[in-house]
């Protein structure tokens, strides 16, 4: 059966429109990644009292271009013992979901490639899990023991932390009575959800850090232990694809944090599509916090990471759902949810404080012990 000419023209137009949209998204995200690499290097440099890149262009602004050029021109080595097909396909499996998430993440009310309506959050969560497969395959396909270990670590870590993320997203969906990204932001018109559900922000942000493998959860590619984990055998353009995916995911986690908890693009003074400035400002602020954490903390060990996920994050996220349900069912004022949420945070904080450390945190306890020792030595 052939389509009538007008319909064919329309579908062709739609097709071109979709292609143009995807191209625009791809370009925008690539620019974002370039800006993120520059920002990370500059910010870490500032945190460490150095300058960061300065030689390439003004303030080193061309450094990402130089890096990208170097990566693309580098020889792409494929180990002879690797599983070629898997080795080739793994980076694609990681980077495609990273881009796909952005199809439905709105910049402003109208600035979205395709608003999937009530499917929005479901779609994002579903695609964010897919990237794990690529990491495991990359580790396995490169026929390297460090790679395999990294892939297994990635599987364990990302799946564990997916649960609190999903739970918190459900809590937010309950609050907004919608899974539509745009609607969730509009519901936050008068006050962002961080004021109502601070617990949710904490869980989402920490679990999000673990999802994208940023410090202190950079366990599955820990350079000093398993030397890059799944990425160990990748070089040149292949490696840069993983790199691209990592930064897009970081940006996505920051964007979701902003959309779900920080009021998205809403802010004073700007209207219409100009509101994207608010959105970007908030996202970059969150990202700077992520970089700040990277500049400050060491890395956890895998058992500590898993214990934290299952003993703290998962119960807390269930608690978030329960208090949201209670709040909605009895129709209490919003501040009651804030109180319950803060109570949960403090209760868990206190439990950690009692369970793991006795009368004080480990740092305080160790500090007291060693100060006593020094006092004895001084006498």
């Amino acid at each position, binding site marked *: 059966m052939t389509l009538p000419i007008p319909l064919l023209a329309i579908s062709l137009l739609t097709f071109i429109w979709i292609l143009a949209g995807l191209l625009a998204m791809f370009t925008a995200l690539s620019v974002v990644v370039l800006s993120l690499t520059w920002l990370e290097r500059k910010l*870490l440099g500032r*945190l*460490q*009292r*150095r300058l960061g890149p300065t030689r390439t262009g003004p303030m080193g602004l061309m450094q990402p271009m130089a890096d990208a050029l170097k990566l693309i021109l580098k020889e792409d080595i494929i180990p002879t013992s690797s599983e070629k097909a898997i080795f080739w396909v793994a980076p694609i499996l990681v980077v495609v979901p990273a881009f796909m998430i952005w199809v439905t993440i709105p910049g402003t009310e109208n600035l979205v490639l395709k608003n999937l309506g009530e499917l929005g959050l479901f779609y994002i969560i579903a695609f964010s899990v897919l990237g794990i497969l690529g990491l495991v395959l990359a580790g396995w396909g490169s026929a390297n*023991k*460090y790679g395999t*270990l990294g892939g297994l*670590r990635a599987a364990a870590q990302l799946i564990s932390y997916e649960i609190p993320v999903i739970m918190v997203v459900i809590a937010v969906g309950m609050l907004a009575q919608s899974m539509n990204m745009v609607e969730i932001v509009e519901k936050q018109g008068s006050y962002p959800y961080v004021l109502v559900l601070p617990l949710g922000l904490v869980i989402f942000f920490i679990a999000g850090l673990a999802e994208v493998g940023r*410090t*202190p959860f*950079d*366990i599955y590619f*820990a*350079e*000093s*232990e*398993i*030397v890059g984990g799944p990425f160990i055998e990748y070089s040149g353009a292949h490696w840069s694809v993983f790199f691209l995916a990592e930064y897009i995911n970081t940006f996505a986690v920051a964007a979701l944090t902003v959309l779900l908890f920080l009021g998205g693009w809403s802010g004073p003074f700007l209207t219409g599509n100009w509101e994207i400035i608010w959105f970007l400002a908030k996202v970059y602020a969150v990202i700077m916090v992520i970089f700040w954490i*990277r*500049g*400050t*903390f*060491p*890395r*956890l*060990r*895998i*058992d*500590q990471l898993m214990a934290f996920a299952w003993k703290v994050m998962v119960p807390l996220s269930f608690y978030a759902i329960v208090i949201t349900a209670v709040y909605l069912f009895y129709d209490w004022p919003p501040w009651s949810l804030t109180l319950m949420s803060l109570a949960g945070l403090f209760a868990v904080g206190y439990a950690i404080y009692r369970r793991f450390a006795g009368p004080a*945190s*480990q*740092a305080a306890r*160790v*500090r007291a*012990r*060693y100060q006593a*020792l*020094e006092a004895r*030595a*001084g006498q």
Partner: protein
Amino acid sequence: MAENPTNVVARGEPVEMLLNMGPQHPSTHGVFRMVLWVDGEKVTDVEPYIGYLHRGSEKLCEGEQYHQVITLFDRMDYLANFNNELVYCNAVEKLMGLEVPERAEYVRVILCELNRIASHLLFVATMGLDAGAMTPSMICFRGRERVQAVFEAISGARMMHNYFRIGGLKEDLPENFREMVEQLMSVLKADIEEADRLLTFNEIFLARLKGVAPISLEDALDFGFTGPCLRACGIDYDLRKAEPYSVYDRFDFNVPVGLDGDCWDRYYVRVKEMYESVKIVEQAMKQMPEGNVTSSLGRRLARPPEGQVYVRTENPRGEIGVYLVSDGTDKPYRLKVRPPSFCNLSAIKYLLQETWIADTVVVLGSLDIVLGEVDR
């Protein structure tokens, strides 16, 4: 190249994976190699391999004149060059009965303590990196670079100084030495404190290091632990106090000790030692007299009488000993080094029981080995 262990099957237990760590692993601090038997993320056994940096230094010493040997000692513990030069010079001086001018002794102490700080700064940097923290490494490397700039102004080289001579020093200090060191100490203290504040009591850092790979004092003594690794077990055994050499008996300083002998204690003792070294340098700068820096030997060849001598000093890594046999010629007949890193490293198999893969790099880092000294 060492053979892979062949007893994998003979053990009769299922071995999930044999993981080769090193000699090209970034966290093995040089070219150390470990073969780990891992069960998932757990380390069940470990086989260490050394010798990738073996250069036959001890044998080479037999073919060099006494003064030329100093350069070889520079290249053993390449992070504590001055301390290594000191122990060798002390050995030859003791054999010859040479009197070292007081000024030279003070300069030696100042340089050795500065070198101790530089070495420990590098340790803190790598410890942070092993645990995944990148910022302390930047701070520490900057501090170390400042120390090395002073070394360069004095001896002409950042590392491998070849500055100490048998019976004194190569030449006197530069004229602006006092200002240089005073300026260095003010910024260096800030650097040490900054790294200390950032890392030492960090909750995650503690979680990674505290209670990991503890060793009891008895076991530590059995393994021949010395230096910070031994003091972490709670005993204040420091040759600078226990058996003062050079002019160390004239300074007021403490010997920091740990409590549990775990990784964190080994780290902590070194951090505290840096503060003590700062104290020693400041006192030595005040007391340093004017005068000659070369002994009666001058620039003549050293030719010790027939005999043998064993001298030991406190290196940043522990007790370094030199056993020197002279047959009365201008070259040593035999020279044996007791390297602290090597003896501390001997416990690696014991320490890595019941650990995780992530712990192996931390435990190895906490021993602070220098492969140039382990393999010689």
